[in-house]
């Protein structure tokens, strides 16, 4: 394996994906068609049809040429590749620089025995993989196996032997899907599916789908008549609100199923220097992540899971989480004991340590001020609205009730954040506890993954020398972690950011006043 393999081409299916890049060429036949429609020259259009055929042939030709020119050779040292029709590029990505190597196999690729291989480094766009190759399953598996080889010199000997494995229970994955799915994503998925199907297969299918869904909805309303009746009469919901509730419920169900299918059959294994994750039913995925490229682990909890004392662990690494179907959960759902045991097995370096710095009791309003506004304003506006517009009273009251839920939920999260947020350090690893919108995060990262430590102090915080801490961790995009109201000096000390000569930190008037106070008033006291 030491000598470079001969260059090979990717699977011919790649031609269809390359066709996408030349779709803009269809603009010419389209423009010609529009001109013909406007001038009414059908015969002229037919006479010039050869041009449209030529353009389509050109598109196919370019895609085939692109596929033919793109060649690669992968060995344990890295990936050599050549690409580009007009601007020829010959590249080499060293294996050391590949942070995440992953494969994906959607269900339709299974019978064709094809896999999509993604190569990700620290460079280039944070939203797109650096290189995507469509390969036969055997070739993709062979490349993935290179990362697990015990003989792999980098980053250490025996880096490939499996140290620990973890297979979560089905119930854990069901819980993860249950708590992390939100209906909005489901609704987005349905609308994207319908609009995309319309784009790809024409408006007929789109119209057909819409009519099928409308019929289904009518039947569902009939079938779910008791539920609809319950919502309408028991909760006195207006029909429009019942409709919205049903749509949200349906969306949530779809999102739940999608998450379940994305994370099902999750299998995580740890070698000395890498983490290997496999899973997914609809899209089979496999990731190989070097430990040094793992930015942080995130123990994420919602208010409900905090109450049930359930934990789920997510990871952030360069190259993961770029697509919606990516797996980012390492431990789907577990009790505290099980979660800690699994973490000790898979990631013994990442230890959750108890808080060393925490916000003071007087800072409660800093945590509660954001959710307090909607909590006060929504009920007040609902009352005013239903009083001023009695005709719309029922709908306004319902809308107010619906809006109050997230507002009070947010208040609960912030209250919990106030009670639990803080910072600690153990060796080179930091643990930050904070909240972001509706989630409580406990994030562990190593010192070498810190990109920027931003300590800021507002005018109100100057009195008791407190500060807000925002830490950006090293990744392709920006990942920031924010804790409110910690002590200024210990925070700087914890990040080794104490300035040797901080003479410009304190305002001169403060110093002058202090000096005046010490030299005049304090000195005069003993003499008097």
């Amino acid at each position, binding site marked *: 394996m030491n000598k470079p393999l001969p260059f090979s081409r990717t699977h011919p299916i790649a031609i269809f994906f390359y066709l996408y890049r030349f779709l803009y060429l269809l603009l010419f036949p389209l423009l010609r068609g529009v001109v013909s429609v406007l001038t009414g020259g059908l015969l002229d259009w037919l006479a010039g049809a050869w041009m449209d055929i030529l353009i389509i042939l050109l598109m196919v030709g370019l895609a085939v040429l692109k596929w033919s020119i793109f060649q690669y050779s992968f060995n344990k040292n890295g990936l050599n590749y050549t690409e580009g029709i007009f601007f020829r590029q010959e590249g080499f990505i060293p294996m050391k620089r590949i942070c995440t190597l992953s494969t994906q196999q959607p269900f339709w690729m299974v019978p064709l025995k094809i896999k999509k291989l993604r190569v990700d480094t*620290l460079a280039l766009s*944070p939203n797109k993989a650096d290189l995507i190759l469509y390969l036969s399953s055997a070739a993709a598996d062979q490349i993935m196996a290179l990362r697990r080889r015990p003989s792999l010199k980098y980053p250490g000997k025996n880096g490939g032997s499996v140290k620990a494995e973890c297979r979560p229970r089905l119930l854990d994955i069901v819980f993860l899907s249950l708590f992390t799915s939100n209906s909005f994503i489901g609704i987005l998925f349905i609308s994207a599916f319908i609009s995309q199907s319309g784009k790809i297969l024409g408006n007929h299918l789109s119209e057909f789908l819409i009519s099928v869904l409308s019929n289904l909805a009518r039947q569902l309303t009939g079938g779910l008549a008791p539920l609809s009746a319950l919502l309408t009469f028991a909760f006195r919901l207006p029909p429009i609100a019942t409709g919205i509730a049903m749509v949200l419920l349906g969306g949530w169900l779809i999102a739940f199923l999608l998450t379940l299918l994305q994370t099902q059959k999750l299998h995580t294994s740890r070698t000395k220097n890498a983490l290997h994750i496999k899973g997914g039913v609809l899209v089979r995925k496999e990731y190989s992540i070097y430990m040094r490229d793992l930015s942080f682990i995130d123990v994420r909890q919602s208010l409900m899971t905090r109450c049930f004392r359930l934990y789920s662990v997510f990871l952030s690494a360069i190259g993961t989480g770029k697509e919606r179907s990516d797996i980012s959960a390492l431990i789907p759902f577990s009790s505290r004991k099980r979660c800690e045991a699994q973490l000790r097995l898979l990631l013994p370096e990442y230890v959750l340590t108890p808080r060393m710095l925490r916000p003071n009791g007087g800072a409660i309003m800093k945590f509660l001020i954001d959710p307090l506004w909607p909590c006060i304003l929504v009920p007040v506006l609902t009352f005013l609205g239903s009083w001023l517009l009695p005709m719309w009273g029922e709908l306004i009251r319902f809308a107010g009730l619906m809006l109050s839920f997230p507002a009070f939920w947010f208040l609960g999260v912030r209250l919990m954040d106030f009670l639990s947020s803080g910072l600690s350090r153990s060796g080179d690893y930091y643990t930050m506890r904070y909240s972001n919108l509706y989630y409580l995060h406990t994030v562990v990262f190593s*010192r*070498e*993954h*810190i*990109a*920027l*430590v*931003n*300590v*800021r*102090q*507002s*005018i109100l915080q*100057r009195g008791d020398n407190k500060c807000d801490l925002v830490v*950006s*961790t*090293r*990744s*392709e*995009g*920006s*990942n920031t972690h924010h804790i409110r109201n910690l002590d200024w000096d210990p925070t*700087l000390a914890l*990040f*080794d*950011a*104490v*300035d*040797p*000569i*901080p*003479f*410009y*930190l304190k305002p001169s008037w403060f110093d002058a006043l202090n000096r005046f106070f010490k030299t005049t008033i304090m000195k005069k006291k003993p003499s008097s």
Partner: protein
Amino acid sequence: MEQSALKPALHLLTVWRIRLLLAALAPSFLSAYFLPWQGILWWCLTAGWVLGFLYFYIAYYPIKLRKLAYSGNEHCLIIHCGVVYTRVKAIPYTSIQYASLFSTPLERLFGICSLAVSMAGARVYMPGLTRNQAKGLQEQLVHKSEGASA
């Protein structure tokens, strides 16, 4: 960097003020050209931009310059900044990818430039350095980041 702090050159304040002056031309032109002379709207807009101009000219930029300072210790590069918020930005040498020099025509006129320090996922600017200072700092940072990651 360990022993001394670096303050930006005073010329930076002049650069900021000239930039502010140029920015103030737009609202003054708008109020003079489009609004009725000494009407209520004219008064509101003129008062708005004059007050804004004075705030930035007299208070904001001088405070910003006063609080801006660059220093470092054995672990990280430290930038003190902020006007309303007092900020300390600490950048571990290990996370520094590269540092590059930038200068606008106005900065070049006054013989100063900015140093942009790039990390993976973040970037910070250090304005108001002379070319020699920036070059020296750039070399130091590259040297330290290489030393730290070795």
